[in-house]
């Protein structure tokens, strides 16, 4: 019992959906609980073992001064730290405050702004501490989470695809909604992992898994702008659950600033 690796699950600003993914792995949950010592997981158990922990899963983004300090202590307590989900890897939907006046948000939602203690930004875990692995998604894919835990148990690097949602669409045999219907879809610049659900349901990808490596959202947004998409719509499409991820952020800021233009080679000017 004492020899099993220990797992801890921590929550920051989030909806709970990513840690719920572990409980949603109904077929594997009891096996996982048998293979690792679930030492700290407030949503699932009352017993709390003290650290250090072998693996820490962090859900949520940093939005308070207290949490800014707490993540430092969690980093010290965890040998291998994994941020899970769009809030932890990119700041989440609550990172929309990063473009807004937070005081105005507080005044809008709460009668007594002085009771509210919050930072004016929502930031990813990696912006505060070194993260050993990031699992993308809003929400994460529970199979990827189980694969991650299994890999760590075997001492291997977790395998998650680095290609785009487009590849998953092709595999699924979905007709491209961008090409066939002219819908602005983030599939070409979004990392795979969801299984390309949205286009299969006849709608656009809105970037739940964040920018894939070496993606070019600026070029994609420019293409959509040139083919009739409304620029403010493109800004909103990019400013979703991964809106504050650098590649998406850069593209939405550019689209916000003025018309997107292309030269003859379809390069952004």
């Amino acid at each position: 019992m004492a020899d099993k690796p220990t797992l801890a699950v921590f929550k920051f600003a989030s909806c709970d959906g990513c840690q719920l993914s572990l409980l949603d792995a109904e077929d594997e949950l009891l096996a996982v609980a048998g293979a690792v010592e679930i030492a700290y997981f407030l949503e699932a158990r009352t017993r709390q073992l003290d650290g250090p922990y072998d693996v820490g899963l962090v859900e949520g983004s940093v939005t308070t001064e207290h949490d800014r300090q707490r993540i430092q202590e969690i980093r010290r307590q965890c040998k291998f730290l994994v941020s899970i989900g769009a809030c932890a890897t990119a700041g989440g939907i609550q990172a929309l405050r990063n473009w807004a006046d937070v005081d105005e948000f507080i005044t809008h939602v709460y009668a007594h702004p002085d009771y509210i203690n919050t930072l004016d930004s929502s930031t990813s875990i990696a912006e505060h501490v070194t993260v050993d692995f990031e699992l993308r998604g809003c929400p994460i894919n529970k199979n990827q989470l189980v694969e991650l835990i299994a890999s760590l148990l075997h001492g291997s690097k977790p395998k998650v695809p680095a290609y785009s949602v487009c590849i998953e669409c092709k595999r699924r045999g979905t007709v491209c909604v961008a090409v066939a219907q002219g819908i602005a879809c983030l599939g070409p610049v979004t990392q795979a992992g969801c299984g390309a659900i949205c286009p299969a349901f006849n709608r656009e990808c809105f970037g739940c898994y964040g920018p894939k490596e070496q993606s070019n959202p600026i070029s994609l947004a420019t293409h959509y702008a040139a083919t009739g998409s409304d620029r403010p719509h493109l800004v909103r499409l990019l400013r979703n659950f991964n809106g504050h991820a650098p590649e998406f952020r850069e593209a939405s800021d550019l689209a916000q600033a003025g018309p997107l233009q292309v030269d003859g080679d379809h390069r952004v000017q």
Partner: protein
Amino acid sequence: MPANRTFEVKALSRVEGEGALYVKLEGDRVSHVELNIYEPPRFYEGFLRGREVREVSDIVARICGICPVAYQMSASHALEKALGVDVSPAIRTLRRLLYCGEWIESHALHVYLLHAPDFLGYESGISMAADHKEAVERGLRMKKIGNELLEILGGRAIHPINVAVGGFYRAPNKQKLRGLLPDLEWGLQASIETLDLVSSFDFPAWEHEYELVSLQHADEYPLNHGQVVSSGGLRIDVEDYENHFQERHLPQSTALHSVMLPEEKSYLVGPLARLNLCFDQLPATAREHAERCGIDWPSHNNFHSIVARAIELIAAFEEAIEIVRAYQAEPSPSRAVVELRPGVGCHATEAPRGLLYHRYEIGEDHLIAHAKIVPPTSQNQGQIEADLRNYVPSVTHLDDQAATQKCEHLIRNYDPCISCATHFLTLTLDRGERTAERSTL
């Protein structure tokens, strides 16, 4: 026993989101009760402004990973009212089926993994599985079936992507839905076994005169539609909700705290309120088993909430089976035509944890100009504190640790959803000096 005692839970467990409990006793008198919601605020109502109407259901889903469908449903209906959109009876039925999936997934999670351990003396469903493997595996399979229903209708279980204003982006596949029938039929039997299990639990003999509030509909157990009714005789259309219920902002909380007007009193929403107010609308099998389970309904013992959840599991499986059996053709079109225009609309649906109210104003630019969201847990927060004040004197003979556990158990009756309420909870039992600090990671 010291004259002053504190019962404190710095980080509540087996609840969704982050909160703490603090109770202070002076002798046998409860001098202070506080549910401290330190879950950081996320400002949904702030950043929904300026977003497109079609984006709302995707965004508000992210308020809660356990009950995203509830947010999507209240939002869609409210926006449809603002836009004057009528949905077809086929879409209405499929939305009810989607909601059944969420009730199954959420209730099975709470009954088996979060709440049953309190009654059986375990710190978690994981520990409980060592002695009650069959029961925990039953709960997990029920939860999985709920999630599969959500996947077929919504594209995925957490944060479904197929909910649109006017209906669905794509009608659910008939073959896939019908393929789930054997599992749903198993689930109906499993939910009856669940009721047998939970109704055999030892419940504290403790009652409270609640003002119960839920939707009520003449022809069906409430999910998407109904009038707002209360045990005290209130019966109003959802459009009148804000004239009878208001939110207050308290210092200890990032959640707003609802009161019922004019007395500014606390009230109870959720499975116990629904079952007491809508017993006659239960589908036949659920009603038959509710009547023979050994509890006299209506019940004012909140520890019976787990029994109410089990009865609602029967109802959800029963309804899901009926809808799936009758699903002959995929509706075409899968959604009503929506023409954007300025307007205001509000709606309430029954989330697993209780009534969920949304109101939206669409501006001249056809974007969201104003959003108001009142989640079930912020409506229950005042009642949780009132319950604690009333309940604590019955546990003061216990040592601090045991008394604190009892308080935490009482809170779990509510299945509080703290992420939702942030726009919820810290438990401390103070029999002396208060420690304000959180020691947890």
